[in-house]
């Protein structure tokens, strides 16, 4: 085997070891581990989801019948996946739920009822960990938080996630992704400055949720490593969404702490490198499209930040005057220089589409990247070949296009088995397997609204 791979070119070698088509013939790194996901919205669910991608058996617990709120969240109330559940076949799951619940088993349990809490205790006794994002203290009041569950299972790794955290002056405040972005500081550095008509802006993604879940998943893996190789002990962790924003903006905080600077937004340019910014091309790539998204002018990232590249770029756009004026990095990077350089580039690009600009820049050897929309991204062979995008033949919902995992592993890769399931789809399987409930018992619990 080694001799075969040694003879391949590097490109062939990578294609062979990272081939997404071979993923299911390889083992899963978290095989044999089990987590409960007592979560809703995105922050908590995505955290458990990353573990499920790696092969953990993740049991997602939702409220019976309607399921969690994200199932009722979808852009403009349009796309939905039917059915919502066997009880509500006429309703569908909104796409807001998509992307944070892959590979999971779906159990419907009402935590509010004592019988439901007893089910959580029975399951936690057989789990490696619990991911939970209800209001801090709620599960404690119900007798199913770390303090009680770790008595049953001392090896339990319990990750709580939430907005402001369970202690401190803001502990009772509610939070969502967009609040984490806004009050955490992310808005204040994103968008155009006021004199360019801009306001502080949101990142399009529910980033403080989805990325916060990644941070917590990393911490869970580290705690599993510590438990299983070093200490044998479980752990309790808290992840605060608003804190994530400060972790992201650590360099801005350092500038404030030392110099009192309050970093501001700088649009599509870059405060550290020039030229390294996104410019507007004057023409739409799809002038005959019926979709207004495609009628917009194109945008492209142009990158030429070394002295040599910058000089060459200015000659290309016939601005030798700027080449001379801004010959050094220190001259180019100044704010007032950028206000002159980028408009010059846009003037040059105003009679071109982003593809025309890309072709010229490629020919001349400049790094660039057109700004692509989700259709253009979806049609890139690159992302499908590598598994960043994939068509899942989902057992419940048929062919769905999905994101792939965030990383590639040669020996024990992450993978997506299904996108999601209806509410309570695995009730019988999980309660039979882990709680030993009979058909009669399950029917009773269902009639009482516990499951």
């Amino acid at each position, binding site marked *: 085997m080694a001799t075969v791979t040694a003879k391949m070119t590097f490109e062939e070698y990578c294609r062979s070891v990272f081939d997404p088509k071979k993923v299911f013939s390889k083992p899963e790194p978290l095989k044999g581990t089990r987590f409960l996901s007592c979560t809703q919205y995105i922050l908590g669910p995505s955290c458990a989801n990353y573990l499920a991608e790696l092969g953990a058996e993740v049991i997602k617990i939702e409220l019976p019948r309607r399921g969690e709120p994200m199932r009722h969240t979808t852009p403009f109330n349009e796309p939905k996946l039917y059915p919502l559940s066997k009880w509500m076949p006429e309703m569908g799951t909104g796409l807001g739920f998509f992307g944070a619940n892959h590979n999971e088993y779906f159990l419907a349990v009402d935590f509010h009822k004592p019988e439901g809490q007893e089910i959580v205790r029975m399951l936690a006794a057989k789990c490696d960990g619990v991911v939970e994002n209800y209001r801090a203290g709620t599960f404690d009041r119900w007798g199913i938080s770390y303090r009680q569950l770790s008595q049953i299972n001392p090896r339990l790794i319990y990750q709580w996630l939430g907005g402001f955290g369970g202690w401190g002056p803001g502990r009772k405040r509610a939070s969502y992704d967009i609040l984490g972005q806004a009050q955490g500081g*992310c808005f204040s550095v994103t968008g155009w400055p006021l004199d360019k008509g801009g306001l502080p802006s949101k990142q399009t993604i529910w980033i403080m949720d989805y990325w916060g879940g990644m941070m917590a998943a990393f911490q869970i893996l580290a705690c599993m490593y510590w438990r299983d190789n070093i200490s044998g002990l479980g752990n309790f962790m808290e992840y605060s969404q608003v804190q994530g924003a400060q972790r992201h903006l650590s360099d801005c905080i350092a500038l404030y702490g030392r110099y009192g600077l309050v970093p501001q937004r700088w649009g599509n340019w870059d405060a550290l490198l020039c030229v390294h910014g996104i410019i507007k091309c004057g023409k739409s790539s799809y002038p005959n499209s019926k979709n207004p998204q495609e009628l917009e002018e194109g945008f492209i990232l142009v990158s030429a930040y070394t002295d040599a590249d910058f000089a060459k770029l200015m000659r290309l756009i016939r601005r030798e005057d700027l080449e001379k004026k801004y010959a050094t990095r220190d001259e180019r990077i100044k704010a007032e220089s950028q206000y002159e350089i980028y408009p010059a580039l846009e003037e040059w690009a105003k009679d071109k589409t982003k593809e025309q600009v890309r072709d010229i820049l490629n020919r001349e050897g400049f790094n660039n990247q057109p700004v*692509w929309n989700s259709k253009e991204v979806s049609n890139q062979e690159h992302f499908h070949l590598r598994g960043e995008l994939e068509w899942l033949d989902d057992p419940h919902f048929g062919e769905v296009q999905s994101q792939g995992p965030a990383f590639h592993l040669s020996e024990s890769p992450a993978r997506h088995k299904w996108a999601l399931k209806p509410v309570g789809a695995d009730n019988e399987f999980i309660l039979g397997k882990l709680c030993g409930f009979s058909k009669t018992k399950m029917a009773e619990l269902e009639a009482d609204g516990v499951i």
Partner: protein
Amino acid sequence: MAKSYPVLAWPAVPTPTPDEVYKGESDKAKEYALWLEENLRQSKNFEKPEALTNIRVLDCTSTMIIGHWCSSLFAELGAEVIMVEPPGGDPLRKLTPFGRREYMFKDSATGEEVGARFLAEARSKQSITLDLTKAEGREILKELVAHADVIVENAPPGQWDEWGIGYRQLSEINPRLVYCWVGQLGQWGPLKDKPGNLDPTAQAACGFVHGTGAPVAFGGTPTRSGWWMADQVGGTGAAIGIMSALYYREQVSGRGQFVEATAAAGVMRILDYNWAWYGVDGSIRPRYGNWDLAINIYAVNPCKDGQIMVGGGHDRLWYRIWRTVGKDRPDVEQHIVEDPNMREVTARLPHYRQVETYTSLCEWMKDNTRSEAETKLQAEEVASGGVSFIDEVCEFPHYKYRGHMEVIDDVHYGKVLIGSSAFIGQRTPGRVKWIGRPTGYDSEDVYRRLIGLTKAEMDSLKAKGVI
């Protein structure tokens, strides 16, 4: 040009004390919060063990933040992270906003300057220098690799393989090695990275930039994130991949593996429902500014002194928001709650209903400052908060109290305020030990300790520019 600036007092307003925070609450009401404080307070971090204490990471990345971000997460949880920099240091060290050198951070002994961007992710790491473009440098790397659990690199695709230090070769030396390549779009495939590709390349290529910013009708354009967001998301993905490989190595295989993580893959993984939506009906996710396509109310809108976020998608919060508004503006409340088309959660999602919602809400918010609106809404337990600037963030009482930022009193760089580790935990919390090291500060220690180089050998390598 170089002026000296006094270190500003932080916090400008004193941090609240526990007595102030829990004043007036019954023992029962505050019991759980106090249990959390007792178990999670960062002031006790150094009394506790570290989860990754026996892991050694070689961070051989330079010029971009993705690899440094990834290795920061390991350093915060206790791994020994050694940055392997080219002689002269990672070029990223020299970058400072708008080239303003007076805003750099100086090593007190040598005066060497480093920019905030690099320094923020040099936390708790050591620094050595090694020239990998020289054959002798690569031989030294091979010796170091024998002692490493993880190596992270971001050279142009295939460069290390060509140099004989790719995964294929290094895994022969150390089969337990987890080798991770990080970059923008990939080290293989039709769009693989070119030398010099940096964030926001991935932001632009994956649909993020197209979706961020206001729609054309609102005067907006596609917009990049204000920081190197894609690198930081991609670096977090890399850390998860590496950590799962370490776990698998210990539990199952005894062997390392080859890992690849890109900024694009990281952001695409978390780009909501973009791919599914296109797959379902060919929809291109539009830019929607500071509103949300899938939740109403859930948006940032202008108010009297800035912008404020208000959120409440489901019915309970929806009516609380309008009740709050109605106290000042009963006409606005009445307009919304009496509209039969706005009663169902999902019925409120189409665009024209969002326009109606926020037009009405802004009628009220235009007369309220961030603080006034926030106070009124929070009285009804509605999630709301003003768009905060960095100074406001650093002075926000809740953040200060919880240690979201902390002053590192550093041997080299003096007092530096940073965003602290976000890994809060009972038994193995994350922590920051020092803020960074000057270029190559740890060369002598690392080369002696790990591969037994003598002083004379190091001097000779230094003279040849290898280390």
